[in-house]
Structure formats: structure tokens, C-alpha cells
């Protein structure tokens, strides 16, 4: 699954290099987060996923302080409005890097709690699918 994460991150960076703006990066990132939420909330509950997401934001803002803005509102993970807004206000490369760090933090957090094997089982379809979607991404201007 680490490969899936890296692939996902690499694709965001590639999109940034190819000139996709921060809003486009944010859209792609949010698609992945929504897929994660869809995969995990039936198992962990919406509140469970929201807690993990909030904790990941808290940890990731050490390197990306502006991510604090993404956790202003109470956990409403389904639309990720705050994250979308925060990413959109950065440069496209910075947005791609920050989202990659946030995703990795979330993955590591879940792994620390339920183990890599189970985390991979739960996120298996998500990151693979989001990766394949990104491969054929058509948001280039």
C-alpha cells in the first residue's frame, strides 16, 4: 500500500508539474479523501474516520501550518470543504506536497492503530482506484 500512496503522491506532483492549478490539485486530492471516507466509515463509523482525519491534520500541520485552517470546522469529512479551500490557496506544488504528507500521516496513523495488514485490506481498493483514476486524469487545462 505504501506503493499506492507513493503513486498517488507522484501523480499529484506530476499534475502540478504539468501545470494543473492548486484548485485542480485540491479537486483530485478531495476525490481520494472521499473515497477513503466511503471505504472506512461503514467499518469505523463516520465519527471514527473524522477523528483519525482530525488527528492527521493536527500532526501534518507541523510541516504545513496553514493546514490548521482545514480543521476549523467540526468534523464533516464527507465534503472536505476546509481542506479544499486550504489547498486551493497554496501554490500547486505546495498543495500537492501537503496533501501527500497528510495522506501519509493518515495512513501511518491507521497503521499504528490497526496494523499495516488490516489497513491495506481496508484501503486496498481506494488507493489503487484513485491511482488508476489519476493515471488517466483529464483535468489538464
Amino acid at each position, binding site marked *: 500500500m505504501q506503493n499506492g500512496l507513493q503513486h498517488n503522491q507522484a501523480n499529484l506532483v506530476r499534475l502540478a508539474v504539468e501545470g494543473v492549478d492548486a484548485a485542480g490539485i485540491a479537486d483530485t486530492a478531495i476525490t481520494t479523501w472521499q473515497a477513503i471516507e466511503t471505504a472506512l466509515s*461503514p467499518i469505523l463509523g*463516520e465519527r471514527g474516520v473524522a477523528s483519525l482525519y482530525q488527528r492527521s491534520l493536527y500532526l501534518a500541520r507541523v510541516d504545513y501550518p496553514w493546514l490548521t485552517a482545514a480543521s476549523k470546522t467540526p468534523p464533516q469529512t464527507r465534503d472536505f470543504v476546509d481542506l479544499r479551500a486550504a489547498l486551493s490557496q497554496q501554490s500547486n506544488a505546495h498543495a500537492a506536497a501537503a496533501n501527500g504528507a497528510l495522506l501519509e500521516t493518515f495512513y501511518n496513523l491507521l497503521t499504528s492503530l490497526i496494523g499495516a495488514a*488490516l489497513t*491495506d*485490506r481496508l484501503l486496498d481498493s481506494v488507493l489503487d482506484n484513485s491511482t488508476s483514476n489519476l493515471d488517466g486524469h483529464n483535468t489538464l487545462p
Partner: protein
Amino acid sequence: MNTEKVSINRLVTGVPGLDEILGGGLPEFSFNVIAGAPGCGKTTLAHQIMFALATPERPALYITVLGEPPLKMLRYQQQFEFFDAEKVQCSIHFVNLADDTAAGDLSKVLSRIVTEVQMRGPGLVFVDSFRSVVLASQQENNEFLSLQQFIQQLGMLMTSWQATTFLIGEYFNETDPNPVFTVADGLIWLRQNMQRNSMVRKLELIKMRGQPTLPGLHTFRISSAGINIFARTQAVVQTESGSTWPAGTRLKMGAPGLDEMMGGGLPHGYSLLVAGPSGSGKSILGGAFLAEGARNGETGILIAFEQHFNSTRGPVIEKLIESGHISLIDIPTSELSIDEISTLLIAEIHRVKASRVVIDSLSGLELALAPSFQEDFRESLARMVWALAKIGVSLLMTSELEDRYNELSFSPYGTAFLTDAIIVQRYIEVDSRLQRVMAVVKVRASAHSNALRLFDIDDNGIRIGGMLLDHEGLLGGSPSERPNYKPLNRDADSD
């Protein structure tokens, strides 16, 4: 007219001991409740059953409602060896309905369960914890489906959808007229009893429709392998076929002269109690009994509760343990139940095909038991001795017995009546020396010597000597010489 009755398939749960108690396994499509106080192992039992039974063809649905957060449940349950992450999302699906339950609308909860069941087509459904559902239904101004209706509809739905169902719940009182208990086909109750500093876990099958189960409280232990249940020994060995040894076979004791004292050796399948004070040679006699078996090609088992250092068992026994002629069961922990020891012992008897067993000693065995089992030690011991007799092994038990020179007793536990044969050892003082004497007190249904014989212990083991015919008052500890003693020729036991 077709008169064929329905045949209920039994699912083998894979939980050690549970299938024996269930009478072969869980009835397929049954509606079961696993109940008990918090921390007694309900969720672990449910997971263990689920991971054993779930396959891609018979997937499992584990529905978590309010109670233990699923994140924690997944975190802790995977510490058990039975947890196989490969099965998750393949043959095991976790579903969280906390939000629906929190609203207190049981019809919505039922609707969600129906949706999930129809989507996944599970062969196994677990609802954890069901107490949450019960509490949700008790919320004030609840205008929704009543708990009773919910249970009845859920039970009907699950059976119709051919799912074996488990409701996991915290119920503190089984006499509570809970509708769940009426609808349930099976009711598994887990308990944990505290006494002094000791905690003992017990499982009881209060109800299981359509099949004979083993009654009573069965102790269980939770380890990294999961739950291991020790079914009550007496019930388990009902099915044992017993010994194949010819009737009347006598086993040699491994101490020259003792066989003659016993009327030709210990009758096969008998239990023998060797009682005596500390250092009198009980363990050595036990070792000699096993070594003699090994010489005849038999395998023996030594359950040792004392003498922790290997060297204290003597080189002969150590070699026999190394070569596999004697299987050593070291009791690793205290707070055991007799049923746990019996389960361990019976499994080992079958594994090594043992014919001789030595328990050294009953005092150690009693100390290894949890306080709550020490109270009914005699009864538990009787159950174990009976079970071993049914299997057809010959048993030698040692028992620490303080010398009392104003009374003659054979066991501090009053266990003498339990055994078929008794040998008692005592110290006496003769010519300013501490001497040992031994007598055969009882060999059921057999003639035996009534002589009180001196014996020594040297590097070759026990050497039985003669009688002190020129002394009297041996059992008083300080015998005195008999004045004008004349030996009697008819006394066959005299040397």
C-alpha cells in the same frame, strides 16, 4: 408420504472445547446470544468463531453498534493468533451502525441490517454489542419499533436468509425476562468470578435448541491463541472406550519386594495413593513406577508441581524424559481448575499413548488451583480420578502427610476413599536413627500384605527390608524392644 426429518448441519466452531460442550458444533442458521459482564471475553469468542467459520462461500458480517469503538476492537482483536487480516473485506465484513443506533430508531437499525444482509448474503451475522440496541430502545419517548418486535423480526429475517446469528450483549442477570432469551436458539453465558486475588472464567450453555449439550460451568482461559475451554472432565470422558489391557493385568512398581506386598503389583487401571511425610520417598517411588513402565515399553506421564530443578528428579528419570518414555507436564501457572489440568492430561495421555500417570503431589496440585476450586478439591479430584480410570490409565498420586503418632490417617484431604490402593510411609525412631517404614494399607479387591516393612533409599532407588518383629509400638514413632520375642515361622512377610 415423505417422512424425512430435517437434518441440522452443525458448524464446527474451532474454539477448543466449545464443540464438545455444544454436542458437536453450532446448529446452522441458529440465533444465538453470547452474554456476560464487560471484559469476560464475549467479543473475543465471537471473533474466534467468526474467523474459524467464515469463508468466501460463507462470508461473515460483523455489525458493531454503540459500545466498543470498531477501531479499538480491530486493534485489540488482531493481537489474537486467530485474527487473519487476509479474511477482512474478503470473507469477513465489518459494518458500523453506531449512528443509526444512537438515534434510538430500531426500525432504522433493522432496515440497515436488512440492507447489509441482502447486499452481502452472509452465512454468519454478529451484532456487537446488543446491549446498545437494548438501551437505545429504552430511550424516552421512543415511538419506534419495540425491542421485542425488533428481536422477533431480526430472528425471523436471519433464519430466512440462512444466516447463523450471534447477538453479543452485556446482560448481568440471566433471570431477567428479556425477550432476547425467549427468541434465541442458543444462549452462551460467560462469567468471571473473583475470589481473593484470583479470577476464574467460566462458560455455561444455558440453552441450545435441538441438541444435547454438556451441562454445567466449564472453565476457560484466554491466551494469545484465543479462548480455550476446558469442558467438565466427567462429561467429556463419557465417550471414552477405555483400556484394551487384559483384565487382571498387574503393573510392577519398580521397587523390589513391593509387588509382593501388593499381592502381585498394582492392578492395571487402579489409582494408588502414596502418603507419607516430607522426604520419605514418595516422589522416588513415583519415579520408580514410571521407570518400570518404561522398562516394559510403556509410556508414562509425570505431572510435577514441585521440585523445580531438573536434577532433583534423578538421572534415570531425566534420561527417560529426554528419550520420550516419560512425558513431563510442568504446570506453568497457578490459578488453574482441575478441569484444565484434566484436559491437558487427557490430551497428553492420548498423544503419547500413556498407560501410567504420576501426579506429584496432591499438595502441589491443590496449591496450583484457584481459590474457588480449592474449596471443592475433593469433589474435583474425584472427577479427575474417575475420568482417568475410565480412560484406563494407572495413576499414582503422592500426598504429603505429616506423621502423627497418636492417630493413623492416610491423606490430609480425606481422599483415601477415592483411590483403589494406598501405600503409607512413616518415620520411626530405632536405635537413635530415623528409619523409614512402609505398609500397603489397601488394594481394592485384592489380597495384600499387612506387614510394616523397613525400607531404605540409595542410589538404586527404594530397597525394601524386613519387619521389625522384635520391636512394638512402631506407629507410635518410638518403638520399644519386645521382651522375650520369639519369631513366628508362619509369618510369610518376615525375612
